[in-house]
């Protein structure tokens, strides 16, 4: 009798746990919110150890590279690489500034761009099963990181935004995450839309009107409409442009599709390789930029 009771309680525990997880998943999917109290607690508990381990690893790996590559050369190479990254970023910003400048001059409404302070950070953790969704960086609230700060690659391309901050580490939601949405525009024509992640490499540029001029090869940049990413950061390059779905209720003939489609169906290949990047820049949050 006791054995049966023990088996029954174990079975009840199993069913209870599975049901709890089922409810937990359903709740998050319906709310579109992945940062919960559970995740926050786990992150806060492990973040000091995480930061410590990554600091030790960075120390060991950089010590080894200094030893092998001679200290002077390694330092020089680091300085040069930082310089190249800075120049690449400046170049991207310059190109967008020039384009924007031309448009603004036409309107006789000159406006200066603001320089945004940034914090360099090292990526210290990522789950390879969710490589396109999030990663962890070794900077937290004690370093000045705040929620919704934009994160960019050293080349200047947008990578994602901060969705959770602990004192020592932060979680970055990548632009390739299915729950990510970035205000975007085509740099050449200023056609505006929203860049969505798809959970794998490419992005979708939605809500671009079918009358807009968009071509394969166009560069897509942030528009700043989302008030998270500053305008002008490179997102990706257009790889495919098609007419989107027609107005609901109309016959699904090719002609009707072309004539009545409201939006374009645009694929964008991100310029930053989110799986390979190991260092990023965290920009000051939107509130601090004002």
């Amino acid at each position: 009798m006791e054995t049966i009771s023990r088996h029954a309680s174990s079975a009840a525990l199993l069913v209870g746990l599975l049901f709890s997880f089922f409810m937990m998943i359903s709740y998050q999917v319906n709310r579109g919110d992945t940062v919960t109290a559970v995740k926050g607690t786990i992150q806060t508990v492990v973040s000091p150890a995480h930061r410590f381990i990554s600091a030790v690893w960075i120390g060991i790996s950089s010590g080894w590279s200094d030893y092998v590559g001679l200290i002077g050369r390694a330092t020089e190479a680091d300085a040069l690489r930082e310089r190249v990254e800075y120049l690449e970023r400046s170049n991207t910003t310059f190109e967008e500034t020039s384009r924007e400048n031309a448009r603004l001059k036409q309107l006789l409404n000159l406006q200066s761009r603001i320089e945004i302070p940034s914090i360099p950070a090292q990526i210290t953790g990522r789950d390879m099963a969710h490589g396109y969704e999030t990663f962890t960086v070794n900077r937290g609230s004690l370093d000045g990181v705040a929620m919704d700060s934009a994160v960019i690659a050293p080349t200047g391309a947008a990578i994602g935004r901060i969705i959770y901050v602990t004192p020592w580490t932060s979680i970055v939601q990548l632009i390739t995450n299915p729950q990510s949405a970035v205000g975007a525009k085509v740099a050449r024509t200023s056609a505006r839309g929203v860049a969505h992640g798809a959970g794998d490499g490419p992005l979708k540029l939605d809500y671009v009107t079918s009358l807009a001029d968009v071509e394969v090869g166009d560069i897509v940049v942030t528009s700043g409409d989302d008030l998270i990413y500053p305008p002008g950061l490179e997102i990706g390059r257009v790889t495919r442009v098609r007419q989107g779905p027609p107005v609901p209720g109309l016959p699904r003939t090719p002609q009707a599709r072309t004539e009545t489609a409201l939006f374009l169906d645009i694929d964008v290949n991100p310029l930053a390789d989110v799986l390979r990047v190991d260092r990023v820049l965290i920009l000051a949050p939107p509130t601090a930029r004002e």
Partner: protein
Amino acid sequence: MTALRSIVLLFGLGLLQIFLPQVWSGLGVVDWLLIYVVLQSLQGSFRRSILLSAGAGLIQDGLAGGIIGLHAFAKTAVAAVIAMFGSLLAVRGPLLEALITGVATALEGLIVIAWQVMLRRPVSLGPIDLLVRAVATGVATMVVLYIGRWWQQRGLIKRHGVRGDNA
């Protein structure tokens, strides 16, 4: 005390799981948490196995940044199957335990894929990824077990002063 030790160990393995791919991306295919869960499920009680696996899954979800409960669900279901299997059959030997861990990895991957399909999210693992993860986790289990056994024997020899040369 055992529970506290298990929790600390799970956190350590969770950290290892997200940190090792930074050292070398190939290490990201080994599910260290699942290795611990499966080995415990083959030896421990059913109740302990599912509680441990639920904790391991929650830690993995918390650290990975995905949907909380996805891996917890998959790991709990897998641990329940393994614990039932372990209570029916005596599983002994690194090779067999490694094989079971490999199968468990594939099973967990399939459950995660099923969830992703149901939630209409992009599937993060293909058939080849599943196979690679299963094989890598199985091989890692075997290595862990052989190292553990060697370490245990070394300890016994030291404690009892047994030496080959009778010195």
